[in-house]
């Protein structure tokens, strides 16, 4: 149950619940292909079976060129690093973990060396972080910083990992170690985010806003990152209007970025604006987290597409569990809570996720699930963490207040 309808009447909940049940049932009957995979023989030679990342795209062309070059010179470290960085960048914006695997393959000759080159270690850490192997990432970063205590990328990645692990104070220290030659916008984003996670939201927000004003010519990708962070901080502080303004500014940069889309969609869902979410995410069904938000919007709108998407999400989570992948716990918990409406199960997943990820969104999930499952005491670890960090998040504050009230 998302926050925005906490005040809705029991009848409203009842109707939504019934509608969802019908949709899910209909989905499993009408749209079996979404979940199962019955082999078939395609009827027509022209039938498109699969769409690929646009090969005509300049970025993709460059990738292909580098890949061909590296296959001729697989032991050329510079080339391998260049290709790996490209893959990682695309993997991030497309939210496609295949590219992370390709990056790892490019670095294969150095990957398991006793002492890999420093730059390989950095990328190994970045890739570990992308796999949610946070401890492995921190270990590699430690090795890098032992050798090169001024390594900007290492400090930045370290700050990010610690922040995700819910250790904002340590993350802040890492931001503080960023070398002075680094772009002020990067440093401000690092510190601003961490400050707003540790009880100094106004300070962090102001710092980041100022840095953005002072860097109008910064790299587009960097501005997008800073704006997304600024918007999130505004959202945590309960300033939905500012958050929306920053998100729109970020979108207007014209870069595709799955994280930005997801974060903006969450703001819209919280504001009970599902129609806009459906429009925003119409083409994003490949990315699990975005499909989840799209499906939430469709459900709120009574869109018949929702059923098929619920089935698809269920199949994807099942597949990822089969593979032993823990990356999707946050999404799976939210899916189980808000779409399947199985709060007890969702609480288990949310708590499991809390073991590795501790950002505001993860805390919120535990609180929502604990409340819906009528088990407020299970949220104890999250309450302690909130106490410890002093996180300022108006929605979380409201949730904590209502935690013992139970629901529906």
């Amino acid at each position, binding site marked *: 149950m998302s926050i925005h309808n906490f005040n809705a009447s029991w009848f409203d909940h009842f109707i939504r619940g019934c509608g969802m049940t019908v949709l899910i049932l209909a989905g499993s009957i009408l749209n079996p292909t979404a979940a199962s995979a019955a082999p078939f023989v395609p009827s027509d030679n022209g039938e498109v*079976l699969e769409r*690929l990342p646009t*090969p005509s795209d300049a970025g993709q062309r460059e990738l292909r060129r580098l890949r061909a070059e590296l296959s001729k010179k697989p032991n050329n470290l510079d080339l391998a690093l260049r290709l790996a960085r490209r893959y990682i960048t695309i993997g991030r914006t497309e939210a496609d*973990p295949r590219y992370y695997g390709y990056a*790892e393959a490019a670095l294969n000759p150095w990957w398991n060396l006793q002492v890999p080159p420093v730059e390989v270690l950095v990328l190994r850490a970045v890739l570990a972080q992308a*796999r949610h192997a946070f401890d492995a990432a921190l270990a590699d970063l430690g090795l890098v910083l032992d050798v090169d205590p001024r390594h900007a990328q290492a400090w930045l*990645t370290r700050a990010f990992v610690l922040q995700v692990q819910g250790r904002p104070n340590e993350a802040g220290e890492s931001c503080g170690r960023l070398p002075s030659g680094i772009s002020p916008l990067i440093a401000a984003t690092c510190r601003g985010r961490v400050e707003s996670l540790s009880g100094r939201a106004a300070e962090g927000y102001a710092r980041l806003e100022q840095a953005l004003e002072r860097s109008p010519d910064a790299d587009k990708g960097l501005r997008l990152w800073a704006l997304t962070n600024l918007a999130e901080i505004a959202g945590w502080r309960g300033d939905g209007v500012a958050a929306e303004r920053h998100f729109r500014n970020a979108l207007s940069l014209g870069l595709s970025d799955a994280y930005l889309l997801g974060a903006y969609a969450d703001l819209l869902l919280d504001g009970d604006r599902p129609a806009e979410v459906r429009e925003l995410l119409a083409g994003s069904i490949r990315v699990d987290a975005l499909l989840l938000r799209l499906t939430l919007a469709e459900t709120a709108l009574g869109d018949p597409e929702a059923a098929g998407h619920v089935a698809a999400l269920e199949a994807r989570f099942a597949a990822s569990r089969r593979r*032993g992948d823990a990356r999707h*716990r946050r999404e799976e918990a939210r899916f189980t809570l808000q779409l399947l409406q199985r709060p007890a199960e969702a609480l288990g997943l949310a708590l499991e996720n809390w073991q590795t990820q501790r950002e505001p969104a993860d805390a919120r999930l535990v609180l929502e699930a604990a409340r819906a499952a009528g088990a407020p005491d299970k949220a104890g670890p999250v309450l302690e963490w909130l106490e410890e960090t002093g996180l300022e998040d108006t929605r979380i504050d409201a949730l904590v207040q209502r935690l013992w009230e139970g629901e529906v």
Partner: protein
Amino acid sequence: MLRRFLVTLITVLVLIPAAAQAHKPSDSYLTLAEDQGALTGQWDIALRDLYYALGLDANDDGAITRGELKARRDAVAAYALARLKISAENKVCALRPTEQLVARHSDGAYAVLRFAAACPAAVERLEVSYRLFFDLDPQHRGLLQLVQGEANESAIFSPEAPVQSFTLGTPRPWRQLRTYLWEGVWHIWIGFDHILFLLTLLLPAVLLRRDGAWRPVGGPRDAFGQVFKIVTAFTLAHSITLSLAALDVVALPSRLVESVIAASVVVAAINNLVPVVTRRLWIVAFAFGLIHGFGFAGVLADLDLPGGALLVSLLGFNLGVELGQLAIVAVFLPLAFLLRGTGFYPRVALPAGSLAVAGVATLWLIERAFNVAPLVAL
């Protein structure tokens, strides 16, 4: 310039969000099914991955059509099957593609490769070596389902664990029953001593001993009644001792058992020549049947019984022995019944047969009791 490079590099890398805004990573789904010793496979491989490995998009328009996939179907099969090695008992199975289809999974279209695996050895211990895409994407995983009837085992192949072994589960009870049933039948057929003993007892079953002379029994009812009693008594007796021995309740030295079995055949044959016991032959059958049961148990022990399903195999073996005996009776009884009235049967067949049996069994007895090399080759 250097600064610019540094900033770009950092921008590029720091942006990776920890939140799992992810596509599904690359997986393939491999199902291996064993049925009656035959091994078949189905392998679902994402077109995205095949594209990255083989470049399926012939016209480079960002879409893979059925036609484009079809044109490369042999290449797809060759590429994939070259990266999968299945061995049974350390002997490599030849993989032959049988069919290629398409399936839609939750994250896109997959090529579905069906294949047959021709294994030179029995499919009991399988070793699967999986290396698809590991060179291109070390995060690729091969998800295996191993299906054997109702049983189902799963495994995940990764670059860290590309080779894994599987022992196909304990066979289902009925299959086991069938196996041991066959062993039972087989054993009674190759166990000449049991056949000879039974036949020796059955030879006079179509006759009656009266006033020191053999007379044919009246009708089939009488003959059948006699045979029925003898066979049942023999069966009952050896079932009891077979079970006791198999369950480790009683154990007798095999040399003693084998010698007594040979002796039982000699005694039965001599009894036909110089009748001592002429009535209630079923008691003789029962008494010696007890010893024959220990003989069967020795065979069963050599078959290496699976501990978990001892009773099932015991039952199967017993039933098999019974079926084997019935087959012998079914051939013997009508023949003997038809010949019973002729002078040939009591005067030639019975004594000559019994004498021959006595001779052979005596040799067996010597071989077994004194542990000497075979005196008669059978």
